[in-house]
């Protein structure tokens, strides 16, 4: 049985749930969102990633209806939603501060949104019970928000915003206040809930690992613009710019000039006394064009002997070793002073490690290991 991969963004017939079309938002002279165009599809788990102040919250608040775009079009399920007040949108938001009503119990908090509609009492009670069960809060239904722990509060906030079965759920840094262990558990919980309810989630996070874990697609933003939208592996393996490559994970950037070597293969002249590196690229580069080779540390191997099979090899000295438990990162200084980071898995015990400080080593990688970027 073949399972269809979930990739509505590749299907031209698919209608997006949310459409941003040239949306700009200004606060006075300050442009918080700059000419943004974006489609988000039903059942997606969409993550917004970017440095502080790049406009993530602003985008969410426009979707929820707390801010109106200065110009451009915003559609939800094919309908223009500009000007619709927040209480009339089938969009719910989970607030960063949770915004639980302190004077209401957990049960009443979850029921709050349901009571705004014309639902009868019994249906409300049933729905609240269902949400309590989903978020494993049944035991705490009668408590006030200040009588439960941080993680439980976060689940109440989630249950409350999911109770109305919105088409779209917005989560603004939902896990920011949790410790790492709880955060990881909750991430999987969120994914389960997203899958079982079929709701579209848009999540803001500062934690790139979190974005990679939960999201079907990730958007990297900077200064009100979207720099790249792609699946987590696409963002990681094929960043479209140095900015994205640098923002997500660890990366070596080697600057140089490109020289075509035929059929999507290029030489990169990066220093005078060493042979050029060989790299492949889908984007064409002209002869002598400036280029950046972005290559992840774990794609670089480090050996004491010069390997014969690798396309790119260069010698250096080990400057520093960062021991991370499961991994070690070696900082290798090349003859021209550049530092290359190479990462290896620690499959053996520390004492058996063969490479140490000041050792002369070879770093090497394949032509397809990195990507060549214009800027």
């Amino acid at each position: 049985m073949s399972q269809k991969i979930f990739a509505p963004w590749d299907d031209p017939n698919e209608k997006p749930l949310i459409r941003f079309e040239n949306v700009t938002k200004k606060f006075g002279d300050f442009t918080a969102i700059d000419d943004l165009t974006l489609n988000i599809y039903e059942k997606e788990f969409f993550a917004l990633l970017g440095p502080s102040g790049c406009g993530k919250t602003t985008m969410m608040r426009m979707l929820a209806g707390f801010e109106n775009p200065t110009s451009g079009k915003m559609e939800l399920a094919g309908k223009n939603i500009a000007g619709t007040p927040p209480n009339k949108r089938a969009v719910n938001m989970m607030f960063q501060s949770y915004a639980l009503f302190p004077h209401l119990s957990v049960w009443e908090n979850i029921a709050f949104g349901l009571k705004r509609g014309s639902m009868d009492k019994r249906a409300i009670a049933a729905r609240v019970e269902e949400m309590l069960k989903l978020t494993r809060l049944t035991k705490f239904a009668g408590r006030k928000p200040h009588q439960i722990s941080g993680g439980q509060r976060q689940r109440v906030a989630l249950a409350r915003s999911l109770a109305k079965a919105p088409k779209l759920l917005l989560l603004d840094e939902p896990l920011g206040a949790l410790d790492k262990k709880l955060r990881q558990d909750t991430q999987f919980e969120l994914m389960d809930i997203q899958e079982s309810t079929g709701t579209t989630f848009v999540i803001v996070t500062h934690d790139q690992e979190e974005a990679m874990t939960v999201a079907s697609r990730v958007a990297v933003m900077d200064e009100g613009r979207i720099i790249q939208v792609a699946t987590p592996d696409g963002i990681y393996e094929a960043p479209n710019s140095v900015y994205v490559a640098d923002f997500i994970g660890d990366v070596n950037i080697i600057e140089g000039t490109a020289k075509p070597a035929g059929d999507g293969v290029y030489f990169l002249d990066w220093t005078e006394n060493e042979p050029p590196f060989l790299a492949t690229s889908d984007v064409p580069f002209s002869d002598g064009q400036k280029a950046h080779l972005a290559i992840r540390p774990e794609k670089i191997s480090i050996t004491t002997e010069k390997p014969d099979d690798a396309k790119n090899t260069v010698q250096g000295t080990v400057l520093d070793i960062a021991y991370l438990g499961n991994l070690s990162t070696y900082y290798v200084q090349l003859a021209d002073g550049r530092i290359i980071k190479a990462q290896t898995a620690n499959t053996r015990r520390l004492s058996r490690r063969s490479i140490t400080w000041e050792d002369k080593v070879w770093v090497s990688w394949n032509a397809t290991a990195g990507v060549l970027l214009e800027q």
Partner: protein
Amino acid sequence: MRRASWFNVTALTLGFAFLYLPMVLLVIYSFNSSKLVTVWAGFSTKWYGELLQNEAFLDAAVITLKVAVASSTLATILGTMAAYVLVRGGRFLGRTLFSGMIYAPLVMPEVITGLSLLLLFIGIGLDRGVLTIVLAHTTFSMCYVSVVVSSRLVSFDRSLEEAALDLGCSPFDAFRLVTLPIIAPAVISGWLLAFTLSLDDLVIASFTTGPSSTTLPIKIWSAVRLGVSPEINALSTIMIGIVTVGVISASLVSKRNAVKAQQDMQAAERGAT
């Protein structure tokens, strides 16, 4: 913990003696049987008995209470609205004037407020009496209410209101169901403040009252101008007693709530797994 220094203890002891000694003397001498207030002639409660016989005082007390209840309730409604407008209203025409009109009455000498209101009431031909006092008291005490309520609103987490809107509340429902219950303590203390201000006011009431509506402070005033009187001492003692009991029990309640909230927190942390 800080050690109480000799200087600090002295400053506090002398300071509080200065604040409380006059009132303590007043209370003690209200139980003096002599008509000569400063000469102790034995314990007696006869002045309290006489006070209760004095219909003029009782009538004045009833009028004062009526005025205070009406004006503090009106002031609470208006003051809460004004606070909401100040904190959440955003920009509107004449906002500066509005906030100026909220803060100015707080420091305006009572003689000026009283005089100006009296001239207004005469100008529009409104008969002076209970109604005019209520209007006058509402006007200055709504400003106190709005200062108290707006200081609470400023620290109020705006996202709670937004969450209510997000869950389908109209703006009015969001206020009624979320904001109001949370700021209720501030609204209540605003009401109490307005109430005591109204009970206490002499100058503005003197300007805006009519012949048929003498309030208690006006009554007390005309009595104390003639010197110390044991009846007034008794009346003062009653008023001081009510306030003391009220303030102490209010602070006990709020302390108990704080302790309870802390225990809840600890219980929650223990219960969290």
